[in-house]
């Protein structure tokens, strides 16, 4: 089997299934009523942390590829990125249902226009008022255009350069995601600190790379002068 087919038919499906394990585990525990005494909070927290983990892996693929020369990694970028979006969507969904919806008044019953209105108002209020929700919202929203333009068709339509520019939004996702986590925890910031360090290293790597590149580009001009 050629390397290409090996990746497509063996490695990718394995990575795909592996990326579904956190979801399957949550589902399994939910089925067995084994998600702590406050399952909605547990699911919100767990999906949140998995979102951040997948964002970090996405951000790590390029630096690791550069350092190891293992170029096949680029073929996993879209899948891992989409899994980040998948877990991010679950995270937002549980927040919307378990936190925003569940804390509403229902003056006209559940199925009513006022429910929709109150829900939207309550979401907006939270985003506007609570900084950790604001950055969390930014982190999630920044993933939407990336998910939407993740297809080959969109790369063609936008042109590689434009597409790449748009997909630099993932840097914002990483920074906002870590900030969201940091501002969320109560006292124990050791875990957010680890993620912050990793994201800083991964973005720092890119920064160093681009600085090096721009200096390298300038050099012939200097010689010519």
């Amino acid at each position, binding site marked *: 089997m050629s390397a290409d087919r090996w990746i497509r038919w063996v490695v990718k499906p394995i990575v795909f299934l592996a990326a579904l394990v956190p979801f399957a585990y949550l589902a399994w525990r939910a089925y067995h009523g084994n998600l702590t*005494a406050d399952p909605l909070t547990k699911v919100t927290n767990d999906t949140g942390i998995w979102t951040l983990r997948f964002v970090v892996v996405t951000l790590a693929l390029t630096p690791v590829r550069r350092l190891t020369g293992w170029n096949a990694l680029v073929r996993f970028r879209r899948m891992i990125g989409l899994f980040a979006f998948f877990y991010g969507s679950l995270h937002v969904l549980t927040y919307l249902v378990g936190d925003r919806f569940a804390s509403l008044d229902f003056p006209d019953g559940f199925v009513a226009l006022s429910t929709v209105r109150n829900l939207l108002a309550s979401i907006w209020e939270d985003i506007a008022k609570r900084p950790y929700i604001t950055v969390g919202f930014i982190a999630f929203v920044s993933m939407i255009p990336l998910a939407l333009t993740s297809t080959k068709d969109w790369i063609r339509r936008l042109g590689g350069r434009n597409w790449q520019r748009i997909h630099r939004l993932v840097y914002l996702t990483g920074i906002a995601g870590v900030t969201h986590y940091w501002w969320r925890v109560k*006292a124990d910031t*050791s875990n957010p600190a680890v993620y912050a360090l990793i994201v800083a290293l991964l973005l720092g790597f890119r920064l160093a790379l681009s600085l090096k590149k721009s200096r390298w580009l300038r050099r012939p001009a200097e010689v010519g002068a």
Partner: protein
Amino acid sequence: MPLAPCPYNELMLLKPASDIRSSEITDKKVYLQRREFIRAAAMTSIGAAAGTLGVTQAEAQSWPRVKIAGPIQASGWGKGEKPNAYEDITTYNNFYEFGTEKDEPARNAHTLRTRPWTVKVDGMVAKPADYLLDDLIKPHALEDRVYRLRCVERWSMVIPWVGIPLASLLKRIEPQTTAKFVEFTTLNDPKQMPGQRRSVLDWPYVEGLRLDEAMHPLTILAVGMFGEYLPNQNGAPIRLVVPWKYGFKSIKSIVRIRLTDRQPVNSWQVSAPSEYGFYSNVNPERDHPRWSQARERRIGEFLMRPTLMFNGYGDQVASLYAGMDLKRNY
């Protein structure tokens, strides 16, 4: 309701000493063997459970539940409140001394040795002393108190505590007239409390009450729940319960009670002064900087309930704060 002079006795867990005939007393060798058998059985089931994905250790490491010896007076508090499930109350805990995740105290608190247990009573009192736990509790009648507990994190439970009014203890140790506050301290021993190996909070955990809050009839020192001794993860062997304040005020595993004329600086205030104050009364009008306190999720329910001022104990305690700006004194 019979009043036992000694409702709490560590040597005779199941009955007052006078009620036990010598024929009932199990030979030491036999009960040690029994314990060994139970331990072995428990280890086997833990092993089996660990093999089954998803069964948490907290469930596997179930505690021996021991009924409190002697009578417990009914207090009438909590009529109409349905206590939460024992399982939920004992596996969903904030007790950072054993880890910051909710399920960690249930998994880690087995390292805490609750007997013998000494509580230092000092500061501005007529009778400062190191009290053995039994000597501290014994002179007072145990009471059932079913209270709502509102965590600052927006969840709540109903817990059937067993304890004594803090006021009766304070009267016995006789605070001096200059004393204005009571300061409580949790055990500080990273060997027993592995969470203390990391400086998540400034150990030991400290809490405090104004003397009139401490003397309030609702304030209790709890030694049990559900008619049984407290499980370690719930603050064994003795903890404070102040039902109109956020849960973190109800300090666990107390080793020191100090009377003072200065307002104690409680641990959460040290950690985040803009978020947690000294009073920490349950107040739906005063948002936590990061979330609204208007509602709470009662554990086991989906829709959140409106949070009540003073956690619904306003009729009893509002007068303590007459004229105070409770948004500023959070």
